[in-house]
């Protein structure tokens, strides 16, 4: 489903990713772990199409398309979803309005009929129930005045409504209480499907107790320095990252 090859990314003049290789097949769950500042969010944002992140080498194929050639909205319409590490606030715009506009944009691009307000409300209420979330969420302005945990849950609600084929969750588990963590895990597990894949960026093993990954990767210094199965996460929990660190990060390497 997703094939990343030798991906190099710079922000401004600063190289951040220094040759990422990653293969994610339909039906799989991958976890990406790694120290702060190692480039996990950079990778997630590049996959979603964030401007200003310059791909200096490498390629990314998604469902046999050149992902990097697509605008962010085209990626979303093709089924890529990124749950942001830091979700943005959109003052004055009700959650329900964003959800409906988003879902209908995606449906339109697939030549599906747009949902009217009533049909949409039925759909979204089902999702709220699934996630054990309150209706009042719908009518609050997008993330405005939301607590950290509420913002994360709101990302999961968006994901549940859009039903992406490739969901990338960037630390959606950080800052969540135990119940919210279960909600998030539940949302992800409900999405699991042989035709879909999930990439979880996380610092903690505890999420992986609820969502068991097929593969775990360690990103450090802009590279994947180790991959393994679910047991790698447990090992990291015990030993930290020190034993895996590359000798030099790309920032200190001489540039070609």
């Amino acid at each position: 489903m997703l094939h990343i090859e030798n991906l190099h990314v710079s922000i401004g003049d600063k190289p951040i990713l220094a040759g990422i290789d990653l293969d994610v097949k339909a039906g799989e769950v991958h976890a990406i772990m790694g120290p702060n500042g190692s480039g996990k969010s950079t990778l997630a944002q590049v996959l979603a199409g964030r401007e200003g992140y310059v791909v200096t080498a490498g390629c990314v194929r998604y469902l046999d398309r050149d992902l990097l050639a697509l605008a962010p909205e085209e990626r979303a319409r093709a089924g890529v979803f990124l749950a942001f590490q830091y979700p943005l606030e959109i003052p004055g715009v009700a959650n329900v309005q964003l959800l409906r506009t988003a879902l209908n944009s995606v449906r339109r691009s697939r030549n599906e009929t747009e949902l009217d307000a009533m049909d949409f409300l039925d759909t979204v209420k089902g999702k709220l129930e699934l996630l054990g979330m309150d209706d009042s969420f719908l009518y609050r302005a997008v993330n405005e005045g939301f607590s950290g945990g509420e913002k994360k849950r709101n990302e999961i609600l968006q994901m549940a409504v859009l039903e992406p084929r490739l969901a990338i969750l960037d630390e959606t588990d950080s800052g969540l209480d135990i119940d919210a963590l279960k909600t998030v895990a539940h949302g992800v597990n409900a999405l699991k499907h042989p035709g879909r894949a999930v990439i979880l960026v996380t610092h903690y093993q505890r999420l992986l107790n609820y969502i068991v990954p097929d593969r775990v990767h360690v990103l450090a210094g802009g590279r994947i320095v180790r991959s393994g199965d679910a047991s790698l996460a447990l090992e990291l929990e015990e030993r930290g990252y020190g034993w895996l660190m590359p000798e030099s990060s790309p920032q200190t390497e001489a540039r070609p």
Partner: protein
Amino acid sequence: MNHAEVRRAETRNPEVAQRVTDEYRWGFVTDIEQETVPKGLNEDVIRLISAKKNEPEFMLEWRLTAYRHWLTLREPAWSTVHHPPIDYQAIHYYAAPKTRTQPKNLSEVDPELLRTYEKLGIPLQEREALAGVAVDAVFDSVSVATTFKDKLESLGIIFCPFSEAVQKHSGLVREYLGSVVPYTDNYFATLNSAVFTDGSFVYVPKGVRCPMELSTYFRINAKNSGQFERTLIIADEGASVSYLEGCTAPMRDENQLHAAVVELVALKDARIKYSTVQNWYPGDREGRGGIYNFVTKRGDCRGDRAHISWTQVETGSAITWKYPSCILRGDDSVGEFYSVALTNHRQQADTGTKMIHIGKNSRSTIVSKGISAGFGSNAYRGLVKVLPGAANARNHTQCDSLLMSDHCAAHTFPYIEVKNPTATVEHEATTSKIGDDQLFYLRSRGLSEEDAVNLIVNGFCKEVFKELPMEFAVEAQKLLAVSLEGAIG
């Protein structure tokens, strides 16, 4: 001059707001034979206008007094707007469709004019108009049609062209004209007092709640003309009325002057809600052409518990200079000002309000949302004045600016004068730039960049849009979307 005004009561056609690609779609010219007075301004021109309208002596006297006063004034220079000098002698002060013999009903109105309004999305045929909005159509200097007159008359509500009110209701006109905006008020209001040609007149009698929206649609058509309309709305004790004005003009390379005056009088327990969707031709990308919109609007809460609310969505005009204000004379009276002003390309806006607290416990609310894009310049200018007698007066001002480009400008000029120690005056202001990260967030949910911009801008304007009558709120949103096309990237 050239103005088309439609006074109407209720809904407008959504077609007005239909999307076009970066084009001002109301920019067409109606090919109709015009009657104009020669260019220039002098006492003879004023006498001519007055004679054409068959006005009583007091009106002519008022005009001439205003004109003589105007000659002693200079154009104000205190605002942020810049424009080349206006040649007041190069303007036609009267233009009207020639066929006109004051049509008695719609079948007598020139079909070309009816087609114009249809094209603008304002059907004047009552059977086609949506129930609940009466419309007065003003085309250049004259009113061409008013709908739902009979229905309103049965309630004692007067809704008619100003020129007709001068004939038929001269007592009311004499009593209230200039009582809120005196002819000495300011340069443009004084000019208007001398040369105004038409506009709308509304009187709602004691205790009557007007059952439909009243609306005037102003259309400038003629070339080299100015438009100087005058609107007077009186809500008698306990009465209430909601009024909306809309306006468009053809695309022309030269600038045209629009200097209107609106006076509102709310007596004891009366309520007036005045909404504007201003969409005069803004000029082209380089700032060629467009309307100079110099307008004086003021409401007087003349009795206790009177309530006046201004809502404006200003997207058009090359220059907008207007400060819809409230004089809160009555005890417990309420004044409100909700404004969205958008400037794109080379547009300039200097707009805001004045809230003058005189009565005890008088309250005012100001919500101003300025959006600047392209090379646009947008200033909020507001005065909150609490006089010594206004015990416990309260004001809250919220003034937000949204910047869409690196070349646009936003300014805020709040003036606060408080002479009563029990008063509470609060002012909050924010300036933000539309964020790349916000846009990316929305696009990553599948929204096009345009939809993302519109969503953010609508969210920004929400507090104002919710004050508009439903239909118009939808129209205003679409209008904003059209005005912002190409504003990003």
